[in-house]
């Protein structure tokens, strides 16, 4: 039985110098057989297990993770959450997630530090203005809050942006989604892990999948570094390594895995109380609660699983940041890192059954999967439990690459890919 976190628990535990807090999740050895196994213990995988247990009453399930939970892209992203996507299918998917985010701390009894501080998307040329105004209208038609700000309103909402008309890419306006914002990325993984563990889900860390065993067109089980696990259902949520797992099952996916970088500055006093993104110059920035500026850079052009990017990508992003925010010019950068992201040709995810019975894939989130974590898990759990997609992820099936019914968010998404 999990003890509830509350102000009273905090006071009680302070009396014993915080040395007697209950363990947040168990560290079990794998059983020989499960009803379903989730491969990948990031936010999406743990959320999938949580909703499988909570809404579909599947309790004999496991999450296997080759490293430690939340150590991949869940712990490497820039924590931005928004749902201002152009197409109806994407709007439905991402706003479903945003609605879950809004009540997630209460539901999990775990503070994920969700902060609806607003996300701005800047326009720097006439095409940007037209495209972003179109997106504002499309969002409103889909019931998603979105506003258009002119230059004066941009300056008022975020005063440190350089709104001079004389810079190379002048700011010509911006969209603003006020319900959007950020959350504490590690806490999302930990909160879902705690919730899933409380319902009996086995979270098995340091357990790498080495093979997928098929009997004809059905799944029999998985080979791992901790032995063979028998199961009829495998849900793969392995982000950059999705193709590696797919190859074990004899499948090919329409994915390319590339390094995506982010960096943070030394901590400073509060200076930016929102998230500002710019597609045209590829710069986005927000400030963490520790005071660091959190800056997202771009992907490298080539396939690589190295979790490190190249210097010129960082240089390009910082040039753009400095032109938009001259006030940051003497700030030093503290840390830089990379994650391996799996990118689909249409820059939309895959949450789908496959040609192998009992094998499901949730992948292709590319450069923007964090914002979808709760919705992704919720819909993937539905897909696995019912063996058919939920209405909200039906468009994100793997067959769209055969039918041609793509969800093309490449140009329409808020940042360049």
């Amino acid at each position, binding site marked *: 039985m999990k003890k509830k976190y509350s102000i009273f628990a905090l006071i009680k535990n302070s009396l014993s110098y915080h040395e007697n807090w209950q363990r947040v999740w168990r560290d079990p050895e794998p059983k020989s057989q499960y009803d379903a196994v989730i491969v990948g213990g990031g936010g999406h995988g743990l959320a999938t297990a949580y909703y499988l247990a909570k809404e579909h009453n599947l309790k004999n399930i496991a999450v296997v993770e080759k490293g430690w939970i939340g150590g991949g892209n869940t712990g490497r992203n820039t924590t931005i959450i928004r749902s201002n996507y152009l197409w109806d299918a994407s709007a439905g998917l991402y706003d479903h997630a945003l609605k879950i985010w809004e009540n997630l701390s209460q539901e999990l009894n775990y503070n994920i530090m969700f902060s609806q501080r607003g996300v701005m998307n800047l326009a720097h040329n006439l095409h940007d203005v037209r495209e972003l105004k179109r997106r504002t209208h499309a969002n409103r038609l889909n019931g998603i809050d979105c506003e258009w700000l002119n230059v004066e309103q941009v300056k008022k909402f975020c005063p440190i942006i350089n709104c001079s008309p004389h810079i190379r890419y002048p700011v010509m306006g911006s969209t603003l989604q006020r319900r959007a914002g950020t959350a504490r990325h590690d806490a999302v993984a930990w909160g879902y892990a705690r919730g899933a563990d409380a319902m009996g889900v086995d979270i098995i860390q340091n357990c790498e999948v080495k093979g997928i065993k098929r009997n004809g067109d059905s799944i029999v089980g998985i080979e791992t570094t901790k032995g063979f696990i028998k199961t009829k259902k495998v849900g793969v949520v392995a982000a950059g*390594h999705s*193709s*590696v797992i797919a*190859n074990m099952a004899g499948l*090919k*996916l*329409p*994915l*390319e*895995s590339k390094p995506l970088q982010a960096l943070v500055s030394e901590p400073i006093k509060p200076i930016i109380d929102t998230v500002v993104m710019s597609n045209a110059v590829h710069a986005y920035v927000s400030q963490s609660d520790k005071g660091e500026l959190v800056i997202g850079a771009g992907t490298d*052009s*080539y*396939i*690589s*699983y*190295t979790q490190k990017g*190249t*210097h*010129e990508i960082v240089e390009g992003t910082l040039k753009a940041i400095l032109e938009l925010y001259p006030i940051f010019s003497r700030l030093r950068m503290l840390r830089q890192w990379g994650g391996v992201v*799996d990118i689909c*040709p249409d820059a939309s995810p895959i949450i789908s059954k496959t040609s192998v019975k009992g094998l499901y894939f949730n992948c292709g989130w590319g450069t923007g999967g964090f914002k979808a974590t709760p919705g992704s898990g919720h819909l993937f759990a539905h897909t696995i439990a019912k063996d058919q997609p939920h209405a909200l992820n039906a468009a994100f099936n793997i067959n769209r*690459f*055969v*039918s*041609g019914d793509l969800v093309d968010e490449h140009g329409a998404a808020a940042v360049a890919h």
Partner: protein
Amino acid sequence: MFIIKCPYCGERDHSEFSYGGEAHLVRPKQPTELSDDQWAEYLFMRKNIKGLQYERWNHSHGCRRWFNVSRDTSNDMIYSVYKIGEKPNK
């Protein structure tokens, strides 16, 4: 960050080059005769290998010529560079 040895110009920083994706994908001669599955296989499905990969690069800020590279995508080590039309020696 790595150095690529262009078969025409010699060793240069990789930022001078553009990546051209998986090598040795042959465009079907009669696309109209393919099924949707076969066309999707050619157009979208990729090995996306973690390990030794054969890939195309273009020396876009140099001689602007295409060539092939074999590289380990798990550590960005380059094993060999060979011209278009040649077979990899590994």
